[in-house]
């Protein structure tokens, strides 16, 4: 092994331990970053190292391109992933909840990062089996980069400025590529208005992901009712209304499309059918709605709601993002419970040609 024989594991271990001692780590080993590695990351983008790509007013911190690059390198990214990290971070900061108190929240929300376009294949983002991970370097390290930026650049660390009660499995590790090839519908980025074939990243904060396993029927209404049950559970209902998306597996998506459902038809069906009766909400102590739209246990039935009947909880199509990922080997999909509201705006990934043109 002429290659690995020249590598020094003992020196590598010392550098990794140094990073732990500085309190930079999310708990897992970091790649120690040197100036030559940083330079390879910065060369992937036309943006200047000191350009500010996001700020958090309440903690007085700003993230520059250079700091994002150091954290992306520490997370284990290859340099060529860096434009995707920049797009992912920018997309996440379009989410109002991320700019507000999301990263400090007791709910400990996780970014959901969705990659569209040719960059998926070029950089090896997994869109198929095991889309939610783990096992794929591009998906895992891009998501981890965002977590390290929040920790190190914004200075929001667990049990200090970050007050997650329990956090959630998958925080800083959810980066999926959309399975555009097996989706019957247009990709998320195209739906949001970007030209077909554009590489782009969308992002929002999630409270959690919950599977819906329905390999039991070919009836699209029955399948959608199964989704409606998970989406409508009272435990997730904090406010008068909520936002909840679905990452359909190819089999569910194709079943619905085959029955004539467009993406918007699916959203409209869920808007119409997701919700609870006032009695069910009352049973869970969530039948009242305050002036600032927070649910509470009302003293009397019917307070704060119109009538005693069925209450819908998804107010618009923007509250029901729909995309497709995973293998076509089973009818298992994921309900993704949005923390605030997805901005609906994907961010285009700068291409190598863009960066080269800017550099020349």
């Amino acid at each position, binding site marked *: 092994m002429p290659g690995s024989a020249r590598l020094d594991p003992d020196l590598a271990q010392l*550098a990794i331990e*140094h*990073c732990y001692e*500085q309190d*930079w780590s999310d708990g897992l080993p970091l790649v*120690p*970053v*040197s*100036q*030559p590695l*940083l330079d390879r990351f910065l060369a992937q983008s036309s943006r200047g190292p000191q350009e500010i790509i996001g700020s958090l*007013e*309440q*903690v*007085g*911190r700003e993230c*520059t391109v250079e*700091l994002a690059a*150091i*954290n992306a390198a*520490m997370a284990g990214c290859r340099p060529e992933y860096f434009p995707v990290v920049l797009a992912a971070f920018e997309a996440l900061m379009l989410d109002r909840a991320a700019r*507000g*108190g*999301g990263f*400090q*929240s*007791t709910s400990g929300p996780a970014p959901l990062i969705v990659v569209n376009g040719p960059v998926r294949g070029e950089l090896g983002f997994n869109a198929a089996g095991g889309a939610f991970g783990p096992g794929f370097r591009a998906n895992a390290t891009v998501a981890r980069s965002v977590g*390290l930026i929040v920790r*190190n*650049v914004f*200075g929001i660390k667990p*049990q*200090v*400025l*970050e*007050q*997650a009660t329990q956090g959630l499995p998958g925080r800083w590790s959810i980066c999926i590529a959309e399975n555009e090839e097996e989706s019957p519908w247009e990709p998320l980025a195209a739906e949001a208005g970007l030209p077909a074939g554009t590489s782009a990243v969308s992002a929002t904060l999630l409270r959690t992901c919950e599977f819906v396993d329905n390999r039991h029927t070919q009836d699209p209404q029955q399948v959608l009712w199964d989704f409606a049950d998970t989406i409508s559970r009272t435990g997730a209902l904090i406010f008068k209304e909520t936002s909840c998306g679905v990452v359909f597996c190819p089999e569910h998506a194709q079943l619905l499309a085959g029955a004539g459902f467009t993406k918007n038809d699916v959203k409209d069906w869920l808007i119409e059918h997701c919700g609870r009766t006032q009695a069910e909400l009352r049973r869970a102590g969530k039948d009242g709605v*305050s002036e*600032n739209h*927070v649910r*509470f246990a009302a003293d009397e039935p019917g307070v704060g709601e119109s009538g005693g009947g069925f209450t819908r909880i998804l107010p618009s199509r923007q509250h029901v993002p729909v995309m497709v990922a995973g293998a076509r080997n089973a009818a298992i999909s994921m309900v993704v419970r949005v923390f605030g509201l997805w901005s609906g705006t994907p961010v285009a990934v700068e291409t190598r040609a863009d960066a080269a043109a800017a550099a020349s």
Partner: protein
Amino acid sequence: MPNAILDPTGGAGPALASAPDGAPGGALAPRRADLAGARVGLLVNTKQNADLFLAEVGRLLVERHGAASVLARTKVNFAQPAPEDLLKELTTECDVVITGIGDCGSCSASAVTDGVLLECRGTPAAVICSDAFRGSADAIAGLRGAPGYRYATTPHPVAVLNPDQVRDRAAAVLPDVVALLVAAAGAS
């Protein structure tokens, strides 16, 4: 000579601006000897039960400590510091201000920030946080240039309390609020 390992934090950074001139916080506003005749401001952050909690504190300051009046204001975004125009109104119209309830990750930090901002503008403040959020409250005080900034705590939880329980909590925290707002006995 090996390459240095690069720092991903950008350094600790300067303390956040707290005073109107851009300076960090840290100095407490001058304290009154007592609250007799004081105009009390309430900075309500919209968290569940914050309005009733602070209103009851205000009422008790009038009833038991001779405060002259109570002015309640609400900040719309609980995760962010209060906007400058709201701070200006409170510091102009009030002699002391109560802020809270710091009852979540972001709002505990921003409630303490509001306290530091008010102090820098010359108005004594008493911040009330749930005792589950001391970590966040203490950290932001340091970032705002006021390490060790003192605030009052009420036991967690607050959001689920009924109105009578909220009033009991307000009465329980009242001595700490008064102690934060007036000069210590014997102090010059």
